[in-house]
């Protein structure tokens, strides 16, 4: 056990020494790995920020009924009560035209409403449907449109659904990109290790002559691969954090122009740790493949 630990420490030392003894080659490899990891990580960060931005909007779909002008408030409230009892509707809420105007003023559009002669808004009903599937929603909207009190029906959920779909697409894209670039990382590490093995061919052959097992020979290379992956992951993390920092002020200005405040969120400690772990594992995997293959060639 002690000897095993010793050899692991020795292998780690050897791997570090090999990294240090070719600083430029190591640096470039680490940068390439870093970029390969920064791309999917950057996408991921962009996604979580958009997700967070959209998170303020309820993704529970809502149907808004605009009632015909001239109807009195009681009719509206009765309609709300009637619709609220339907099996496919979870709740119905009546918003009078005065209340609507007040809300509009509160939301920062007082300038606009002040210029209006009267209240142009209709009474509205806001429904929360129990069904969420697109087809059922369509059917429900079509049915509601036929009600005599209703002037127009709007599904507020449309853009939320579109955003959700877009985010889902983005997520798939991140996975695809991560998969491809993970493959690239494995190949990059594998290739550097293969070159290194050829450079150390003599040592490997001598070690084998005097009784070294493949495992013994493999170990320093595995540490080397994992270290390269780990440092590459660190480089990727720094790149993403740097990019966020760089973009934050311009995005902040952009958001301010829309009257909003934006705070970007970078990869957190947990996500960063996951990134490093994945990078190290991929490096290890690439090294394992390269060493096993090359050692068999030496036979």
């Amino acid at each position, binding site marked *: 056990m002690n000897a095993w630990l010793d*050899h692991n420490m020795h292998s780690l030392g050897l791997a570090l020494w090999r990294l240090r003894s070719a600083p430029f080659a190591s640096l470039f490899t680490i940068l390439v790995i870093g970029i390969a990891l920064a791309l999917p990580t950057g996408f991921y960060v962009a996604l979580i920020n958009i997700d967070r931005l959209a998170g303020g909007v309820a993704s529970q779909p809502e149907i808004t009924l605009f009632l015909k002008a001239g109807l009195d408030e009681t009719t509206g409230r009765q309609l709300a009560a009637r619709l609220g009892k339907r099996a496919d509707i979870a709740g119905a809420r009546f918003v009078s035209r005065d209340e609507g105007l007040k809300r509009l003023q509160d939301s920062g559009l007082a300038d606009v409403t002040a210029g209006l002669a009267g209240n142009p808004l209709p009474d509205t009903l806001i429904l929360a449907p129990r069904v969420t599937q697109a087809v059922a929603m369509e059917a429900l909207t079509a049915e509601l449109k036929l009600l005599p009190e209703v002037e127009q029906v709007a599904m507020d959920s449309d853009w939320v659904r579109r955003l959700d779909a877009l985010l889902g697409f983005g997520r798939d894209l991140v996975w695809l990109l991560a998969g491809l670039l993970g493959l690239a990382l494995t190949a990059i590490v594998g290739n550097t290790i293969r070159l290194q093995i050829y450079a150390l061919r003599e040592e490997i052959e001598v*070690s084998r002559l*005097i009784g070294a*097992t493949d495992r013994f020979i493999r170990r320093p290379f595995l540490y080397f691969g994992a270290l390269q992956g780990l440092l590459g992951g660190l480089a990727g993390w720094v790149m993403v954090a740097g990019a966020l920092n760089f973009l934050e002020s311009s995005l902040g200005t952009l958001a301010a122009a829309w009257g909003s405040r934006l705070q970007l969120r970078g990869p957190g400690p947990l996500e960063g740790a996951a990134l490093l772990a994945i990078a190290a594992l991929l490096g290890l995997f690439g090294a394992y493949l390269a060493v096993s293959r090359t050692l068999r060639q030496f036979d």
Partner: protein
Amino acid sequence: MIEFADVSKRYPGGHEALNHVSLRIQQSELIFLAGHSGAGKSTLLKLIAGLERPTEGHVIVNGQNLGRMRRGAFPYFRRNIGLIFQDHKLLYDRPVLDNVLLPLHIRGMSGADATKRARAALDKVGLLQKERTRPVTLSGGEQQRLCIARAIVSRPPLLLADEPTANLDDAYAKDIMEMFKAFNQVGVTVIISTHDQDMVACYGGRGITLAQGRIAP
């Protein structure tokens, strides 16, 4: 300890290095394997060390039939053999001491114990003063002695030396042969290949002469 039963070795391309060789070597023997270059001496040593596999026949070392051994078992088998090469096969990127430490590390020995043993081996071949130097700075005879130190550091019961004195002048060669004789006297089986037919007369032991892949009578 070593048994060859009707062993032939043909290399790809048809060259027959060994042709129906049978022999037996007992424990603690000192063997001089003589013959011209190309007679099959190196092949015979490689077969004993499991570096080559016979095309025909059986090679049995320490009761193990090498032809039937798993690939993964060879490293452990080889740890019982000290190999000495004509071209030394040293690692030139590290100091003398580290070269001798390598077999111990491979066996899972490290720390002060390993260093102590490596120094003892270096002392035995007279290189203790040079433990921090690089092998490149050593003379041919010193490099050969370093190779021997590396072979004996783990105290193997069997030493195989392939023309260990071929490139050395007489004084160095005599030194090294005396060293092998000393190991043999403490019970180590030593097999030395040489193109010099007079070794047995000088150092005792048993001579086996190979000619064109066969044992000469």
